[in-house]
């Protein structure tokens, strides 16, 4: 009985092995596959915001509706016919001509799409989430084959924050109006779609960032209310040059660290709409952010050396009620551990009506020096100065609108360097002073106001995906009004705390 059972087992095993062999051969040379493996590699651990260990990168391959081409028609049936157990199939027939586009993939951006030829910063830190002028998403052709891929990525954040203001001084009714405290929860989630066609080292790329906002009371023109962030096209050669047109941000020069994020209380500082004049930091920022209104950017990027990058950005269109034209060249020298960034900018806004002589001309120069000692500390300093010259409708100089602004600041981030339990501390501060030309009441005394913004932050990244950041901030602003004799002054302070959850994908 035992012998019979053993024979049966041996027979079954033999049949299984033979069957396995035939399957293996059938999947061998020339066997049809749903997607060529070269186009669907297992992604490396994301080096960018989608950090290791990565969730499985999803690649959905959509068949391209190409016209049947006898030269490239699949010879699979013939081979399948020969793929019998134990037989060796003939070698694949070479394609006479490769198709210009071999497949279309919808792909969550792999780690390689976030370039890091030199260290960008401490992993998960604010500096690491900056690309320092690099071309990204980086989706080059692979193995000499043309490639068309629709990259999918994005990020979302949710802030719950509280702020309280403490004004004092000779501000009159402003003091009472500024005694406010309030809480806010706000959030944005952004889906980034990046169709990219690459061949050799060339590429044509587009990008749109579709935005959802949590606060449904803000309009598209409000801060944080835009429903589209990026919308651009570009053409060029990877790591050599490109030309980009559309709605996008210029290269960052000032780096603010783990606080002072866009749309937050600490970014606003101790300034309310009631105050005598609005103040905000100046960091070569007149033309850095996406222009509002019917205006957009054009930029040429040039990469002469792996550590040297240039951007020549121009803005044209209409913002508000009038046309705008601007230029902002920026250079970045990036050795990884040391990054030097600098640039200048110029912008002119005029009125639409030919009878209106309103004109505002802004100029500025700024730079930043950053150090990264991976994986434990990074820090940097920023400085910029600019002028604004304003002309009114009648063509007369506008004293209160013509001013010099200066900002100086810095940041530091410290991390434990842990891959599994990444924790970061961050501190930073920024001092800004604006001095205008308004000296009508007292000789040689002009409006002079300044703003101090500072923060401390702690951040932990859960499962290397979910960023949890707590930011506490202190800000103080001071206004010296020269429109009265004697000049009056008042101050405002605010304290805020903010808890941010963000997810990069």
């Amino acid at each position, binding site marked *: 009985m035992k012998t019979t059972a053993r024979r049966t087992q041996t027979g079954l095993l033999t049949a299984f092995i033979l069957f*396995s062999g035939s399957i293996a051969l059938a999947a061998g040379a020339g066997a049809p596959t749903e997607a060529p493996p070269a186009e669907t590699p297992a992604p490396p651990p994301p080096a960018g915001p989608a950090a290791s260990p990565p969730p499985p990168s999803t690649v959905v391959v959509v068949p391209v509706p190409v016209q049947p081409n006898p030269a490239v028609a699949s010879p699979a049936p013939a081979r399948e016919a020969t793929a019998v157990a134990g037989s060796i199939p003939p070698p694949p027939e070479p394609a006479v001509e490769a198709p210009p586009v071999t497949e279309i993939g919808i792909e969550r951006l792999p780690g390689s799409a976030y370039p890091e030829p030199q260290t960008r910063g401490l992993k998960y830190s604010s500096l690491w989430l900056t690309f320092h002028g690099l071309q990204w998403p980086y989706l080059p052709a692979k193995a000499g084959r043309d490639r068309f891929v629709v990259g999918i990525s994005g990020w979302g954040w949710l802030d719950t924050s509280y702020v309280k203001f403490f004004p004092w001084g000779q501000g009159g009714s402003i003091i009472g109006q500024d005694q406010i405290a309030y809480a806010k929860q706000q959030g944005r989630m952004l889906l980034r779609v990046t169709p990219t066609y690459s061949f050799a080292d060339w590429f044509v790329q587009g990008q749109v960032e579709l935005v959802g906002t949590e606060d449904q009371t803000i309009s598209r023109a409000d801060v944080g209310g835009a429903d589209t962030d990026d919308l651009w096209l570009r053409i060029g050669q990877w790591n050599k040059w490109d030309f980009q047109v559309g709605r996008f941000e210029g290269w960052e020069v000032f780096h603010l660290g783990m606080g002072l994020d866009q749309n937050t209380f600490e970014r606003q500082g101790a300034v309310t709409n009631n105050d005598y004049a609005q103040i905000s930091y100046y960091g070569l920022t007149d033309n850095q952010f996406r222009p509002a209104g019917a205006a957009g950017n054009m930029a040429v990027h040039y990469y002469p050396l792996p550590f040297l990058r240039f951007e020549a950005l121009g803005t044209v269109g209409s913002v508000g009620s009038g046309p705008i034209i601007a230029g902002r060249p920026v250079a970045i020298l990036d050795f990884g551990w040391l990054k030097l960034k600098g640039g200048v900018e110029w912008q002119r806004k005029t009125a639409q009506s030919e009878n209106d002589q309103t004109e505002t001309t802004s100029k500025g120069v700024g730079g930043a020096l950053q150090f990264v000692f991976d994986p434990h500390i990074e820090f940097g300093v920023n400085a910029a100065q600019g002028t604004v010259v304003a002309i009114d409708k009648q063509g007369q100089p506008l004293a209160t609108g013509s001013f010099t602004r200066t900002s100086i600041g810095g940041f530091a981030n410290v991390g434990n360097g842990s891959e599994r339990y990444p924790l970061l501390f961050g501190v930073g501060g920024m001092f800004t002073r604006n001095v205008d030309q308004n000296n009508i009441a007292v000789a040689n005394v002009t409006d002079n106001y300044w703003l101090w913004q500072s923060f401390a932050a702690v951040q932990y990244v859960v499962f290397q995906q979910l960023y949890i950041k707590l930011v506490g901030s202190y800000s103080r602003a001071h206004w010296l009004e020269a429109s009265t004799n004697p000049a009056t002054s008042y101050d405002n302070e605010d304290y805020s705390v903010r808890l941010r959850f963000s997810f990069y994908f």
Partner: protein
Amino acid sequence: MRKASTLIGLTLVALGAGARAEEIAPAAAPLPAIVAPLPDAAPPAPPPRRIKVGLSFLPMGIGKFTTPIGGTAIEGDASFAYAFALVASYRIIGGLELGIAPQLLYNVNYKVYPSPITAPPGSKETDLMARVAYTFPVEETIGLYVAALPGYSIISQTGSSSAKGFVLALEGGVEMAVTDRIFANLGGGYQLGFQSVTVGGTKLDDRTRYVRVNLGGGFRF
């Protein structure tokens, strides 16, 4: 025996067929060799470091300041003050530490002086504090701590007697090991002063209360 040979042969054929199938797959990056650590090859645990010495910067943005003005103790919002502290402690058992944390606090003053007379310049406060702390380890490099800092405080005021008295700070925060020896901490808490000064034989409050933020770091030995 013959059956066994047949089985082995068929297995090799099957494996060989599989190998062919893999050969036409695109060349993949070689996988890094995985070397299983031997149980006895594990690095020895570092010796426990019990002594900790560090420096802290303590911005104190929100607070109250009370001084005698015209024979009456008047409380008002305190101006932004900042302190520097030296922290030295010894870990007794588990996460319990005992130590000292003297600090110098600058710009102790009212935000708006509550009197029409000219406001005096900012004072300096010296807090001689002990420190009792307990750290709860979250993982190897991260710990959550709570601390109590009782001490004696002296507020040196220009043109008048120094205010003296008990001070107590309570604090909590996160401590992070940057390296094996270097650590950083970020915390917050509240500091209560019970200082007083004698004016004309009458003891009057001359004290400070602050919300404190602790940005610190140091070395373990």
